[in-house]
């Protein structure tokens, strides 16, 4: 069971990419619940609403930071957010760098304000 107030969800078009990010984050965030959704329902390259929904549900935390690769993953995440009861922060930041920062800070016990402040300069996503 996670002892941290925030969980992290990675949503990528490619299963290996999502899984690889989790591996990178786990090195510095052993006690943070990190789940992922990668690819379509049949593990092809793409986005899956159902996988994202599952990753959100499976995460042990009730407050989540979600990171995504491309806009189509983002829109699927938004649909999941509208139907979920968890508190979910969808981050328009660099996927790997943003998720790594959030993971390291969550592990270190940082507050929501500190985390979002550190993520702010990594905001690079504008196109839908």
């Amino acid at each position, binding site marked *: 069971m996670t002892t941290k107030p925030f969980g992290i969800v990675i949503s990528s078009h490619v299963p290996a990419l999502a899984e690889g990010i989790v591996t990178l984050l786990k090195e510095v965030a052993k006690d943070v619940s990190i789940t992922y959704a990668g690819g*379509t*329902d049949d593990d092809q*390259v*793409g*986005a*899956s*609403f*159902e996988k994202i929904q599952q990753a959100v549900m499976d995460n042990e935390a009730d407050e989540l930071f979600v990171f995504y690769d*491309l*806009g*189509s993953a983002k*829109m*699927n995440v*938004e*649909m999941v957010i509208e139907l979920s009861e968890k508190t979910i922060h969808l981050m328009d930041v660099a996927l790997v760098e943003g998720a790594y920062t959030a993971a390291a800070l969550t592990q270190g016990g940082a507050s929501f304000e500190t985390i979002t402040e550190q993520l702010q300069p990594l905001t690079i996503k504008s*196109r*839908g």
Partner: protein
Amino acid sequence: MFTVENTTKWLHAFHEKVQANQSYLSELDSAIGDGDHGTNMARGLAEVERKLKENSFESPQEVLKMAAMALISKTGGASGPLYGTALLEMSKQVAIDPDHIGKTVEAGLNGILKRGKATTGEKTMVDVWKPVVESLMAEQQLSKERIHQFVSETKEMKATKGRASYLGERSLGHLDPGAVSSGYLFEAMIDGGILS
């Protein structure tokens, strides 16, 4: 007006057109995106077909809601949330006023705008939905010619939303795949008898 019958017929017709043009849609997407738009739409609409067969419906809003949820959960890609939100908003509006086709399609457009945050001229499906709504509001009707015109106008647009936007200038000269599939959706509305 929207009825269970014509809404069902419309969705069947949409499914058929997408199926018949699946590889064409993916080809269009290969040029300026990742080449999966046909696959995505066919997967989502196959689920809609399945649900249409397995269930019976009391109202057009029920049909639309079911279709929306099927598209959201199975389509994948950007088009899943976009078409899904459109149909979900249409189902809400049709419950209020099933007679006003224009208002219902406008609710769908607003759903797409909310979800994708695009405006006109960004080379997306919005460039078909928006002028279709305007025609319906002004003239209460829509011809296939007008639809084709709206679709083909995306060719000369520079993409600033979606995957194609990564290409910048290089997206010029290609039809937008989501605009083309939206063209099928509106043609199917005519074929299904919702619009004449």
